[in-house]
């Protein structure tokens, strides 16, 4: 069953589709949440939230605008960010050191396309200069503001901004991101912004 058929079932209120959706995307959702939140129980909460949101908003999914996996993961990201920002006791220490080599082990289950793409993105990240990768990871996975990153690393804000920007630009170049139609930008404005 393809993504569109799956989402049609969900939008029509077919609860059995939730299990199929879970089988397809739970590993990526859970992994992203765990990486961002640093512990498994919090990541489990986020995962539960995400699938509940997908169920509630299934009718909003527009296949013309992108892959279902991307949509689900974006929801996972924003949910984890909200969680991080509310519960930020002390920002996670694992981001303080320069990031380790990511585990490039092949992923055997889950959405095959996402797995392939994920490995490409990890490889592209590894090609960035370490300080750009660090700034980008702190900003994205750590959901730290650029001011917070500057304070954390004791470097000027301007340096952080340029590292994040250069990192993003280089990543885009490595991955040759196809340009989305400009008009689509609005459709993606998400409530947390």
């Amino acid at each position, binding site marked *: 069953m393809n993504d569109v058929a799956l989402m049609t079932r969900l939008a029509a209120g077919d609860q059995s589709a939730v299990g199929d959706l879970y089988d397809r995307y739970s590993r990526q959702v859970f992994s992203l949440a765990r990486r961002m939140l640093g512990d498994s129980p919090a990541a489990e909460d986020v995962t539960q939230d995400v699938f509940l949101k997908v169920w509630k908003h299934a009718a909003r999914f527009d296949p013309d605008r992108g892959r279902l996996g991307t949509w689900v993961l974006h929801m996972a990201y924003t949910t984890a960010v909200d969680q991080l920002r509310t519960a930020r006791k002390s920002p996670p220490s694992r981001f303080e050191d320069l990031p380790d080599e990511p585990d490039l082990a092949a992923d055997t289950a889950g959405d095959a396309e996402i797995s392939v793409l994920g490995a490409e993105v990890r490889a592209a990240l590894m090609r960035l200069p370490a300080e750009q990768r660090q700034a980008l990871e702190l900003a994205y996975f750590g959901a730290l503001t650029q001011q917070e990153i500057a304070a954390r690393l004791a470097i000027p804000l301007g340096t952080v901004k340029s590292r994040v920007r250069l990192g993003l630009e280089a990543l885009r170049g490595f991955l040759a991101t196809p340009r989305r139609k400009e008009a689509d930008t*609005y459709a993606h404005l998400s409530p947390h912004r």
Partner: protein
Amino acid sequence: MHTCPHTDDVITFGLGQLPPDEARNFQRHLVACPACRLQLAEVDATLELLALATPPVDPPPNLKARVVGNVAEAAAADRRKRRTWTLPAWGAAAAAVAIVLGSYAVLRIDGLQERINGIQQAAPVERSIAMVGTAAAPAASGRVLVAREGGGARIALQTQGLPALEPGQAYQLWLIKDGKRTSGGVFVVDATGKGGLATWLPEPAEFDALGITREPDAFSLQPRGQKVMGSST
């Protein structure tokens, strides 16, 4: 070369890290700045890929049962809520849409899909009418759903490809019966040309045809502006 003074905000906004006030200002700026829209699209696309960069690990085996259980609970709660859903709330929502009509299309249209879904779920859709653009809006297309409820009619409209409106202008849906036109509601479109409305009319919806016009304001009792869409039948 990107020379917009807001260029610094694009990445911060893309990361969801602009404070709410600044984010609202920036959203307004985006409407007017193609360079920032393009840059944001690129930042968003790259960030979306970053979400895939985490090596996958297996969630605990009992998590699936919890996820499926949550959804079953939410579905049951939805059914209870739908039974007690009242019409005045609809009237108020429609009035609110009409009153604030003007400059924040993006924010207002948010939530429309949910209301349209509400219409589809609350009552069986009686008629589903395709809408096509006239020569004044050849790229426009859309659909109107009509459901009978509470002695009146719920109407949901979704359109795409309509031209952007000037501040203060509105699109208006007309129900045409024996040559007489009555308003089916006013709406605006977002920067992508998508728009629509979800409303309840106190009378049963009787019409031979539907039309959409571009009106100089949101208060027309009869069409004054140009017809931009019509029902295809």
